[in-house]
C-alpha cells in the first residue's frame, strides 16, 4: 500500500508548481485556440480549456497540503482546522456549471451558424461590422 500522504509531503513544492503550471498552461492553450484557430468548434473547445485551467487554479489555491475534505460530520466537529478551504471548491462547482451552460449555448449557436452559412470559419462571419 503506497502512502500518498508521505509522497505528497516529499514532493510538495514540485507538485504545487506542476499544478499551477498545468493551470497556466491550460489557460494559454485555451487562449491560443480562441485567438488563432478559425474553426468555431475549436474556438468553443478553447474556451472550455481556458475555463478548465481557471478551475484548476482555483482548486489548487484552496488546497492545504494534507487537508481533508471540507465536510463536517458527526464525531468530527473540529474538521475546520484540518480541512481544505471549502470556498474555492464551492466556487469551482458553480463555475463549472456556468461553463457548461455557456459551452452548450455556444455549440448550439455554432450549429445554427453552420446551418445558415455552410461554413464554420469565423473569418467568414463578418456580416455585422463597422
Amino acid at each position, binding site marked *: 500500500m503506497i502512502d500518498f500522504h508521505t509522497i505528497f509531503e516529499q514532493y510538495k513544492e514540485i507538485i504545487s508548481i506542476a499544478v499551477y503550471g498545468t493551470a497556466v498552461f491550460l489557460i494559454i492553450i485555451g487562449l491560443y485556440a480562441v485567438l488563432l484557430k478559425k474553426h468555431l468548434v475549436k474556438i468553443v473547445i478553447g474556451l472550455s480549456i481556458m475555463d478548465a485551467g481557471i478551475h484548476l487554479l482555483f482548486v489548487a489555491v484552496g488546497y492545504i497540503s494534507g487537508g481533508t475534505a471540507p465536510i463536517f460530520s458527526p464525531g468530527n466537529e473540529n474538521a475546520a482546522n484540518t480541512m481544505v478551504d471549502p470556498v474555492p471548491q464551492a466556487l469551482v462547482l458553480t463555475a463549472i456549471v456556468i461553463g457548461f451552460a455557456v459551452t452548450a449555448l455556444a455549440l448550439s449557436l455554432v450549429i445554427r451558424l453552420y446551418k445558415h452559412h455552410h461554413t464554420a470559419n469565423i473569418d467568414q462571419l463578418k456580416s455585422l*461590422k*463597422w
Partner: protein
Amino acid sequence: MEMLSSLLLIFLIGAITTYFVDSINRKFTGIIAFLFVLLGSLFFYSNIHIGDVFVFQLGGIEMQWGINDYSYYFSYIVLGLGVLALLYSIKYIEGKARQGYFYASFLLTILGMIGVIISQDFVSLFIFWEIMTWASFLLVIYNAYYKVKTKGIKYMIFSAIGAYAMLTAIVFIKEHYNTLLIGEAIERGAFNFQQYRYIPIFLLLGFGIKAAVMPFHVWAPAAYSKSPMSFTTIFSGAMSKMGIFGIGLVLSTFYLQHNPENFYWVKLALGWLGGITAVMGTLYALIQVDAKKLLAYSSIAQLGYIVVGLSTGTKLGVMAALYLAVLHAIFKGALFMVAGAVERQVGTTDMTKVSGLIRRMPWTFFVALVSIIALAGIPPLGGFVGKWLLYEALITESNNYFLVIVIFFSSTAAFLYSYRFLFGLFLGQEEKETEHVKEAPISMLIPMLILGIGSIIIGSFPGLIFEPAAKAMQAIGFKDVTWQMSLLSNIWGNTTHLFLISMLIFSVFIIAFLFLTLKGLKKTRYVGTKEISTSGELPKEWENFTFQHNFFKPFERAASPLYHLNMNRIWKDLGKNTEAFFGFFRKLYTGNGQTYALYVIIFLVLLLLFKDVIFS
C-alpha cells in the same frame, strides 16, 4: 414676480394649443397662434415693469429672471416683430402641411427669445438659448426642399458650437467666480479679458455665431433663405439680435470696467471681424440671383455694422449699434415679408424669372421701396441716422480709419444690391408669366405696411428709438447718454434736422409721384423680355434675356479675388474630411469576433505593461 413665469406660460400653452388645434381644425391654427402672441405681448407691456425680478431654485441652482431697460429694449424687437410675423404667417402658410408643427415651433422660438432676454442667470440663459435654437432648427427644416437636410444640419452644428462655447464659459464662470448670476458675475469681473481671457472669448464666440459674424456666418444664408419667409422675418430680424444682445452685454461691461486702450486688440479684432463681415456679406449679396438669398447675405452685412458699432465700446458706437439693431429688425423684417409675398403670389423669388411686379403688387412695392431706402441709408429714412452715428463713432472715437473705409465701401456697395433687389423684382419689363399675379392678401400687407411706415417714422424721429436705447445703455452701465428727438449733432457743432430733411424729401417725392402718375396715364406699350430685337437672329428658347442674368458680371469680374475667399467651401471641405477621417476610425470594428477578443488581450497586456504609469 410670478408675472414673468406666466408670460412664458402663455407662449408654452400657445405652442401646445396650436399644435393640437391643427389636428382638429386647421383653419384656426394661425389665428390662434397670432392671438396667443398678441396676448403675450399685451401681457408683457401691461403687467411687466422694469425692475421686476423673479428668483427661484431649480435643480439646486439659483435662478433669476428679471427685466431691465436693456432687455426691455430688445423685447420691442422680439415681441413687436413676433406679432407682425405671426399675423403675416396666417395667410403665408395657409394651405401648407403641418401648420400645427410650424406654429408650435414658432411660438417656442419666441418663448426662447423672451426667455433669453429675461434671464439674469447663466443657466436659464443657456436653457432658453437652446430652446430658441432647436425650435428654430425645426423651422429651418420645415420646407422640404431638396437640400434642406444638410442646410438645417449646418445651422444646427454652428449653433451647437456657439452654444457649447457659451456653456464652457458658463462652467468656468461658475468655477472661477462661484456664481451663476449674470449681475454678480459682472461685478466680480467675469467678462474681464485680464484674468481668465477665455471666458469672454467663449461667450463672444457663442453670441457671435448667432449674430452670423465671419467666419461663422456660413449657416446664415442657407438657413435664412430656406426657412419659411414669415419665420425668416423673425429669424433674421430678432434672433440674430439675441447674439447682439449678448455681445453688447459682454463688451460694454468689459469696456466700462477697463480702459479699452489697454485692450486695443479686442477692439481691433472685433471691429475687423465686423468690418469683414459687412464687406463680404455685401459682396456675396451682390451676386445672388435669388432675392431671398440676397436678403440673407445683406442681413449678414448689416449685422456686421452692428458688431462694428459695439466694438467701439463708446457711447456713440453702442448707441449706433442699438439703433441699427432695431432698424435692421424693421426693414429686414419688411423685406423678408416682401420676398415672402412675392414667393407666395408668384411662386419664385428668382430674380431672373420674376420682374416688373410693380403694377401687380403696388403696395408690396411701396414697402420694398421704403425698406430698401432705409437699408441703403438714404437720408429721410432710418438707415441714414444709423450710419451717421456709426461713422461719427468710428471717425471721432476709434482712430481706425481703415475700418471706416471698409465700412464705407460696404455701405456703398450695398446700393448695388439694393438696386438689384428693387429693380429685379418690381421694375423692369413685365413677364407674361406674371400677368395673373395679384397683390398679397390684406393680412400680409398690414404687417408689411406697419413696418414700412415704421421705418419712415423712425427715420424722421430717431429720438423714438434713442430714448429707450439711452435707457438701455444706462442699464448696462453707460452714464449720461444724451439724445434728441429729431436732431443729429456732431462734435464739430453742426446739426442736422432730420424732420426737416424728410419733409423736404417727401414733398419732392409727392411732386414726382403726382407728375409721374399724370404722365403715366398716357397709354404705354409694355415690352416683354422675349420681345427683343436681335440682329437678325432669333433668340433660342432657353436663352435667358432677363437683364438680371449676369447683372453685376463686370463687378464680379473686378472683385473676383475676393470671391475666391469662400468660407463656405472651406467649412464644407473641413466637414467632409472630418467625416472621412471618422469613417476610417470605425473600421476598428472589423466584425470579426476573434479580432475583438484580440483587442481584449492586447488591452490586458498593455495595462499589465504600463500598470505603474497608469495606476500611480
